């Protein structure tokens, strides 16, 4: 759904500025137009300043212009109108004005909202005037009697009455709903306590629409309510009512992707006539973190000052001035003031935020409270309010800074001038030097970030493959592949016979980063399972440390990284016996660091190996990894059926030029695999499925069964454990006779994959 720029009514952004939101717009349209059954309340949740309000306004414009069955209404709660009478009057005036404007297809009638309600009603169409007048009269009467409850009931029932009389589906878009929670939470002035009670009684707003849903009948059109606001306090609005949560629709709203954001920056600059270089564009993407508000502020500021953004210095100068005293600074100041209304608490808030801005991993609550120097209880309340407004994260033990880097910059600048009272620089904004130093690092981080993204992709692709062991062994890799091109390495890796079985990774967590004397790193925790067996003893945990440095990583830096790894692992309740540590260093590792890694039995790679791993895993998943020819055989689980399989593979292997001895080995391995599958599979179809794939240099035999997994999936562990049982002996036989053996999880069972290489005479 798209609105032409000429059809903008409430929305503030042009289509070129409002990008990457097609999916959310479609969700809202579906939500509004789903008739009869279905959810009638949705919450739009997402980070602050991501554009939730604009999405509501765009939705309003869409339905207003469409002029069809959906009656849109947009109302943003206002801090000054949180008492029941003001709210009731304001909401009803705006609702009626928008309703009349919609019915008359004339947005200019929105101005009616500024007229007394009795006057507003007179502008209704002939069809609507009777019931609009009824509503207005009832409201005026209640207001005259000072009956707040009746006023609220009258206002909040207006959408339902409009639905009843017109057959339209009201879509009530409530913005800044978090103010509702704030109003009742403060408790000193209880206007919305009353409102909440009215909600329950009048079956309106948050209780009413959920109740309506529960008893939903298809023939009565109920209003749809879409709520937006700060995520944290909004969540507190809802009572722990299971039915209510079951009926609630959540529309997630994330920051737009970098691609969209980059387009937005360039389009925005072009529209404003601001010259923008590609490198500054890239820096803006990274520094402004896909935040539209901040980006517009910087571009507007550059445009009004007639400044070109050609170099980092150009950009950082405009940015720093904006943060110190421009629109960004004033917005952030107002945000803090909103949570901390008086000077004393503002100072305390600034103290807390400044402490957190430089505390990478958060600060203990007690130390933050001490720094705030407020009376007992006051600091906690203030932290709670700052948390609600997403200016910091107030946990049970630690307080962390918000992820808003612009806030951190503002806090640093404000702290300098307001708390430390440092003099302002004679020329240039106070932040500039600091920001320029950071800009360089940010762009380095971007380079590093591409490796982080690659590592994330590689870890996510781990799916029980058998990967060449040298990819985790820097020395072995260097010895074999030094000086070879990436393509050559990719081809040669197929020939590697020493392999390791990767776990199947199901979750990758960014465990943060750090830096120390020219080295910076980022940690990822990758959790999953070995051999595709989902039980506690097969849980796998990998810790991948991506290290960026210009020199080989020395042992001291490695020690610091290890401390961070230990910290990241603390508090994890994984049953994984021993996490696998994998260090990836851009320039490799010093001798002492290598020794330390080896003694800890950890893995180490360079960026080149990460590239090779990425290529290798991609190749495995690519369609051209298909073998030349394939045969399939299904045998029943019954006495000696495995002999049929052995005879079949004999013919196939002979045709593929395998020699007599190798053929016997393959046959024996196939027999053992079949016995294993029959013994341990509990296959519901009582069948064993086999695939024989022949390619130029190998035969790959996959023996699968449905149902429970067979044998101990960890073939390596079996071989090493010198199993003496029959099953262990069978696996040992397979392992000894074939060149590669591994288990593979399938959706409905397990496969044993065995490879035998064709050793041509010249290779022997």
């Amino acid at each position: 759904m798209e609105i032409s720029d000429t059809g903008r009514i409430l929305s503030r952004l042009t289509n070129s500025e409002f990008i990457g939101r097609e999916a959310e717009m479609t969700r809202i349209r579906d939500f509004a137009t789903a008739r009869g059954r279905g959810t009638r309340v949705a919450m739009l949740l997402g980070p602050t300043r991501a554009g939730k309000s604009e999405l509501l306004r765009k939705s309003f414009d869409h339905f207003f212009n469409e002029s069809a069955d959906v009656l849109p209404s947009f109302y943003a709660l206002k801090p000054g109108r949180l008492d029941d009478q003001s709210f009731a009057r304001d909401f009803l005036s705006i609702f009626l004005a928008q309703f009349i404007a919609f019915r008359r297809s004339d947005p200019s009638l929105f101005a009616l909202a500024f007229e007394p309600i009795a006057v507003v009603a007179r502008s209704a169409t002939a069809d609507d005037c009777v019931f609009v007048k009824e509503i207005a009269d009832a409201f005026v009467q209640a207001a005259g009697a000072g009956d707040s409850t009746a006023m609220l009931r009258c206002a909040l029932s207006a959408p339902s009455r409009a639905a009843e009389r017109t057959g339209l589906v009201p879509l009530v878009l409530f913005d800044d709903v978090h103010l509702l929670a704030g109003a009742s939470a403060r408790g000193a002035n209880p206007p919305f306590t009353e409102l909440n009670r009215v909600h329950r009684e009048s079956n309106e707003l948050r209780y009413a629409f959920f109740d309506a849903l529960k008893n939903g009948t298809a023939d009565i059109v109920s209003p749809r309510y879409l709520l937006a606001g700060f995520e944290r306090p909004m969540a507190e609005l809802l009572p722990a009512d299971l039915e209510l949560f079951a009926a609630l629709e959540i529309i997630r709203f994330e920051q737009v992707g970098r691609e969209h954001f980059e387009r937005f920056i360039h389009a925005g600059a072009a529209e404003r006539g601001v010259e923008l270089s590609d490198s500054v564009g890239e820096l803006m993407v990274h520094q402004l973190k896909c935040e539209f508000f901040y980006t517009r502020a910087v571009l507007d500021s550059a445009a009004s000052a007639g400044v070109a953004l050609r170099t980092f210095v150009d950009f950082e100068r405009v940015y720093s001035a904006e943060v110190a005293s421009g629109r960004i600074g004033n917005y952030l100041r107002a945000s803090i003031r909103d949570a901390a209304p008086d000077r004393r608490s503002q100072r305390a808030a600034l103290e807390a935020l400044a402490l957190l801005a430089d505390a990478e991993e958060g600060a203990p609550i007690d130390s933050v409270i001490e720094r705030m120097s407020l009376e007992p209880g006051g600091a906690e309340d203030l932290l709670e309010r700052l948390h609600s407004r997403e200016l910091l994260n107030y946990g049970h033990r630690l307080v962390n800074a918000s992820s808003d880097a612009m806030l951190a910059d503002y806090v640093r600048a404000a702290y300098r001038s307001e708390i430390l009272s440092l003099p302002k620089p004679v020329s240039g904004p106070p932040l500039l030097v600091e920001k320029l130093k950071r800009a360089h690092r940010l762009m380095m981080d971007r380079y590093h970030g591409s490796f982080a993204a690659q590592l994330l992709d590689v870890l996510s692709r781990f799916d029980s493959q058998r990967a060449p062991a040298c990819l985790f062994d820097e020395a072995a890799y260097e010895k074999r592949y030094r000086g070879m091109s990436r393509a050559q390495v990719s081809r040669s890796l197929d020939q590697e016979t020493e392999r390791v079985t990767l776990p199947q990774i199901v979750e990758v967590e960014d465990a943060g980063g750090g830096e120390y004397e020219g080295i910076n790193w980022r940690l990822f925790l990758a959790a999953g399972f070995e051999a595709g067996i989902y039980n506690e003893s097969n849980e796998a945990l990998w810790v991948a440390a991506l290290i960026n440095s210009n020199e080989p990583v020395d042992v001291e830096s490695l020690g610091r990284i290890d401390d961070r790894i230990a910290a990241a692992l603390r508090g994890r309740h994984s049953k994984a016996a021993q996490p696998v540590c994998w260090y990836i260093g851009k320039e490799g590792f010093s001798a002492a660091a290598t020794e330390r890694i080896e003694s800890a039995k950890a893995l180490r790679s360079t960026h080149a190996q990460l590239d090779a791993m990425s290529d290798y895993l991609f190749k495995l998943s690519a369609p051209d990894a298909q073998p030349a020819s394939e045969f399939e055989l299904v045998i029943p689980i019954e006495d000696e059926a495995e002999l049929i399989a052995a005879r079949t593979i004999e013919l196939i292997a002979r045709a593929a030029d395998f020699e007599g001895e190798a053929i016997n080995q393959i046959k024996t391995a196939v027999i053992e695999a079949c016995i294993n599958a029959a013994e341990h599979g509990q296959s519901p179809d009582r069948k064993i499925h086999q695939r024989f794939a022949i390619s130029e240099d190998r035969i790959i035999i996959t023996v699968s069964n449905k149902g429970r997994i067979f044998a101990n999936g960890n073939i390596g562990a079996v071989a090493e454990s010198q199993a003496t049982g029959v099953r262990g002996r069978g696996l040992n036989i397979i392992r000894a006779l074939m060149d590669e053996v591994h288990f593979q999880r399938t959706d409905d069972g397990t496969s044993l994959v065995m490879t035998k290489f064709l050793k041509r005479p010249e290779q022997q």
Partner: protein
Amino acid sequence: MNNSEITTRLVEGVAVLYPGPYLNQLRGERIEERCHELLAAGVTRIVINLGETELINSIGISILLGVIEAVNNAEGKLMLSNLSSSNRELFEMLGLMSHAEIEETEESALARLGPFATAEA
């Protein structure tokens, strides 16, 4: 292949067993039964000729190990003969060679277990 009968012959007090082309659980158990019968009848010298045995599986091997142990416990002697190179490799791999005595041919096994050899044993 369902013919699981084990051919047996007695040569001067030594029993020679022929497990057939595939030594699996079924044939392993037949050999086991046959050996117990032989031991009960006082025949304690046994040769298992694997010349026709093309394939052996792990269950067959496990049972074979049990049979060797039973014969040893009865103070008898069991020898394997006519192993193909693949079967020999399999036995070596599983450490069976230390449990069983192997002879190249049935004749050489008989020669070692026959009446003249008995005195030695």
